[in-house]
């Protein structure tokens, strides 16, 4: 039996086409808003995956880069009038440099200790954001003028659309970079580090260099997304962006979909972000949100630690193999 197999490129083109026309399918502000947030979640989860998935270093510190990107964009927008849609891309380079420096210290540790250090990194930045109130306006956070271009604010009905497209472009770029890394020698090196760091080093991989670079790259897209986020909400406050929960959502999405796979983090984001918005809409408070997210993370870690995509692939493989075996044993 030959089944018509749809090539991956057709799938991707089809999904992309849906995302491109999405703002014209629905004119509900709420649905457009959720899609912008989902795209953003997919960006951060995919970006996290470069260090957390390929390299196997579970960073809970990526909220730091998200928040830094957000603060830099908000601050330069307010002081120099730099437009976030442009400045976010450049300011994120600064964040990536900072991430490399932080990684240089943090990546000396492994396993649990690494997680702890990255958590500490987020706490430090939160303290700085709370206390350097001359720059950050402390706990009250930074506000920005209403989104627009050239001094003209966008009309409230269309305001989500520019954000939809810039997030979409950023997501495509993130996935492209993630895909290229996976194909490259660099990516092979990262996976080798995940599998056995000692052996990777002994075959001549400069593991420290690789890890720091992966950490830097994975911080870049998160920082750009943070910058655009701060403009989207025209507000950024330290306890959210520099909160561990922001890091955890990225990790949860990547793990749920399948860490170390190209599409897993995207899948995870498209499941968790709408769910998250639904919970907030339905139950309001953050406490139920926290419980559900923690609960899902717990269940995934206990019962499906590889995530949806690898589990599904394994299941399908086994089924085709079984079918083949039964076909071989009963020749027609």
């Amino acid at each position, binding site marked *: 039996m030959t089944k018509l197999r749809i090539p991956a490129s057709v799938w991707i083109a089809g999904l992309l086409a849906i995302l491109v026309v999405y703002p014209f399918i629905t004119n509900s502000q709420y649905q457009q808003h959720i899609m912008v947030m989902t795209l953003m979640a997919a960006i951060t989860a995919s970006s996290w995956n470069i260090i957390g998935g390929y390299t*196997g270093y*579970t960073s*809970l510190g990526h909220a730091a880069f998200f928040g830094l990107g957000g603060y830099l964009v908000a601050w330069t927008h307010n002081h120099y009038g730099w437009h976030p849609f442009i400045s976010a891309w450049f300011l994120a380079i600064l964040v990536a440099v900072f991430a490399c420096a932080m990684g240089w*210290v*943090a990546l*000396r*540790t*492994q*396993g*649990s*200790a690494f*997680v*702890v*250090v990255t*958590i*500490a*990194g987020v*706490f*430090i930045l939160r*303290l700085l954001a*709370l*206390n350097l109130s001359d720059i950050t306006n402390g706990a009250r956070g930074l506000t920005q003028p209403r989104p627009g271009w050239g001094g003209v604010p966008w009309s409230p009905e269309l305001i989500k659309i520019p954000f939809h497209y810039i997030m979409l472009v950023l997501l495509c770029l993130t996935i492209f970079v993630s895909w290229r890394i996976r194909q490259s020698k660099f990516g092979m090196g990262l996976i080798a580090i995940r599998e*056995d*760091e*000692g*052996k990777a080093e002994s075959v001549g991989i400069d593991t420290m260099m690789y890890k720091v670079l992966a950490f830097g790259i994975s911080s870049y897209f998160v920082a750009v997304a943070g910058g655009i986020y701060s403009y989207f909400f025209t507000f950024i406050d330290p306890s959210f962006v520099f909160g*561990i*929960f922001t890091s*955890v959502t990225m*990790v949860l999405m990547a*793990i749920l979909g399948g860490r170390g796979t190209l599409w897993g983090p995207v899948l995870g984001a498209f499941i968790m972000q709408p769910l998250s918005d639904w919970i907030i809409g339905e139950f309001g*408070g*953050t*406490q*139920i*949100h*926290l*419980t*559900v*997210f*923690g*609960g899902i*993370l*717990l269940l995934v*870690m*206990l019962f499906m*630690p590889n995530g949806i995509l690898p589990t599904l692939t394994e299941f399908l493989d086994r089924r085709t193999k079984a079918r083949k075996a039964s076909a071989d044993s009963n020749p027609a």
Partner: protein
Amino acid sequence: MTIPSFHLFVQTLILGVLVGGVYALMASGLTLIFGVMRVINVAHGAFLILGAYITYVLFQNFQIDPIASILITIPIFFVIGWLLQRYMLSRIANPEQTSVLVTFALALVMEGLLGIIFQTTARSVTPSYTSAALMFATYRFPVTRLMGFGIALLIILLLYLILQYTNLGRAIRATTQDPRAAQLMGINTSMISAFTFALGVATAAAGGALLSIIYSFNPSSQSDWIARTLSIIVLGGLGSIPGALIAALILGVMEQMTAIVVTLYWSPIVFYFFLFITLIIRPQGLMGEIIREKG
């Protein structure tokens, strides 16, 4: 920035040492668990806060003294810890890598549930001696902190005696040094793991009770406490209880000093600062083994 007078300096030192003792108790369970199981129990902060809330409920509803309530909460926490290890942590594959996320998820669930039950209002337990203080040569010794320090030292001493002089303690230490060899010597290491985890969680019951009379707390304070205790055990050397004791005293004093010299708001940064410095200069901490383990 203000330079404190000599009197203020000594007073701060006293408060720092007293609070450091409580920190040592809080961190001891965490470092004990790491030593035996190579698991960092990120839910430790949440257990401290859970302990504080149970103490709060017992005090508000049944007028049970927060110190006395430790006798009730320790057995409860011991059982919880035992069950968690037997039925959850022991099932995960590759615990060194994934246990952090599992216990982290547990912490989030606990924080969320505590928030649903108790709301996010800051609470504290206020027995009659809350604001009482002993004076000694013009220096103030707040009663709650003195009691906290005393109880903490007592429990750490008890922990030390268990580890040093009982068969169980010997088995735990053997498992810490070399789990495989311990198993070959006939030690039931999975039982030891469950016992150690239960013991570690039980110390959080006592830590939580002390926390509740010294500090105010709400469910989200768990992240502050896990950050503090983690910094302490990294500085002390993961797995080393004496290391944790020294590190807790150092950080307790440094925190109080920062609060006086700079402001209260900056004092938590002491912990993270020390954490990073430790990792750069001496990754194995003051007394521990090297954190960086080659695969």
